[in-house]
């Protein structure tokens, strides 16, 4: 699974994880904490990118880990532990978004966004991002994305999920996932160019 691109490939680390999982099943606190530290950055970053609110992201990361630890005795190793955890995290976040009535991926969002979709201005200069993007600016641009776009973009481009997985997770078609990703990238490009122009003005 693509989401496992950042999985534990270091045998030493993988061995640590496997041992920690077994000890966590026995209820060892230290083992729970090893697992937490191995995955905390990935889980928290995913939550933060999706909700753009640090306090809420902490709550969601906490919930994701708790759900995982409650079920750890059922983990049999058929899939990678990190894959299991990250899917669980995505589900926790999506559940929260749905509870708040925010669109995960919606038709309305797609149509509305199509109307507002950035257009290429052929013949004008300065269309290119000049080969580098400031990470902070990229984070801010992602934060500004409409929720539906943000979900697909974060899951695909940041977390590495494939479109078929995204479609399954959020309950949309593969085509819809592809379409929203493309529009999200176009929107991000416009935001980033706008930010760069603003920075040039002020600075």
């Amino acid at each position, binding site marked *: 699974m693509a989401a496992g691109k*950042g999985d534990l490939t270091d045998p*030493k*680390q993988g*061995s*640590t994880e496997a*041992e*920690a999982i077994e*000890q966590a099943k*026995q*209820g*060892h*606190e*230290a*083992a*729970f*904490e*090893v697992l*937490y*530290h*191995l995955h*905390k*950055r*990935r889980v*928290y*970053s*995913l939550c*933060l990118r999706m909700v753009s609110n640090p*306090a809420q*992201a*902490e709550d969601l*990361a*906490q919930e994701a*880990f*708790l759900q995982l*630890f*409650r079920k750890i005795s059922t983990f049999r190793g058929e899939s990678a532990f990190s894959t299991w955890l990250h899917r669980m995290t995505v589900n926790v976040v999506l559940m929260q978004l749905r509870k708040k009535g925010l669109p995960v991926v919606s038709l309305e969002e797609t149509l509305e966004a199509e109307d507002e979709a950035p257009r*290429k201005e*052929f013949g004008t200069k300065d*269309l*290119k*991002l000049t*080969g*580098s*993007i400031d*990470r902070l600016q*990229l*984070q801010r641009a*992602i934060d500004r994305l409409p929720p539906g776009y943000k979900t697909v*973009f974060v899951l695909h*481009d*940041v*977390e*590495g999920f494939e479109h078929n997985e995204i479609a399954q997770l959020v309950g949309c078609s593969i085509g819809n996932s*592809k379409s929203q*990703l*493309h529009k999200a*990238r176009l929107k*991000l*490009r416009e935001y*980033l160019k706008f930010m760069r122009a603003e920075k040039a003005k002020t600075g």
Partner: protein
Amino acid sequence: MKCSEVERILSEVLDGASSGTFPTDVDAHVKSCPDCSDLASDLKLIASEARQLAASEEPAPRVWLRIAAELRAEGLIRDSSIIDSSTRDSEPAFARPVIVPVPVPASPGWRWSALWLAPVAAAVLAAGAYVIGHKPAPQVAKLQVPPPAVASPAQVTQAAPVPAAPQQVAKKSVAPAGGNVNGAGNGNETGPAVEAAVEAEASTEDQQFLSVVSTLGPSTRATYENQLKAVNADIRETQAYVDRNPQDVDARQHLMDAYQQKALLYQIALDRIQ
């Protein structure tokens, strides 16, 4: 091939072009069209930079503290013995397990010496509430304000000072907050000296805390020390920011969170000891 067609399929083509090459017809157009060429390179750039954002953020230490507290409350932690040394030796540097002690037979004196952790934890919370509930004031005046001592959670959320109960403990715990809240730029020449004294007192408090915890074992002490350093650094940095931006509500809330985290640290230690 038209620009609009290329734009429509570009993302998909990019995702599929792992080798970095496009299908022939798209490639021909992109090479001959500067706008589409720019668009293709920008979209590629966005996608590649986005990948760097995975696992880029570090959660605050309080997240683990809350999880651990919940796991204990739910009884999922059944064995607090130390994870075996072979596992610990192979752990990456960032994986610092909280080594929970094998239940230590606590002597009466030991239990007694730990009792001060409870009011200190509450006082740390009260200190946080006090800090965020009051605007910065001249240093001398602030030092004369009787510090809040112990607050219930409800009182803390209302940022209401309460009558001092274990006054001595409370004063010690509140001192760092009271000292730091004065902040830079208030023009008070005694500031650095007072802050230094306050830092020293806070450090003494933490040292006492660690000395109690160290009876649970060197690993436990090291873990608590790391957590304490992290939360103190968080408090210090946030405090400095709040001093510069006293109207920033989010920053004040973050400061309160940091104090709550420190209080939680004390409380967890107390739970383990008792």
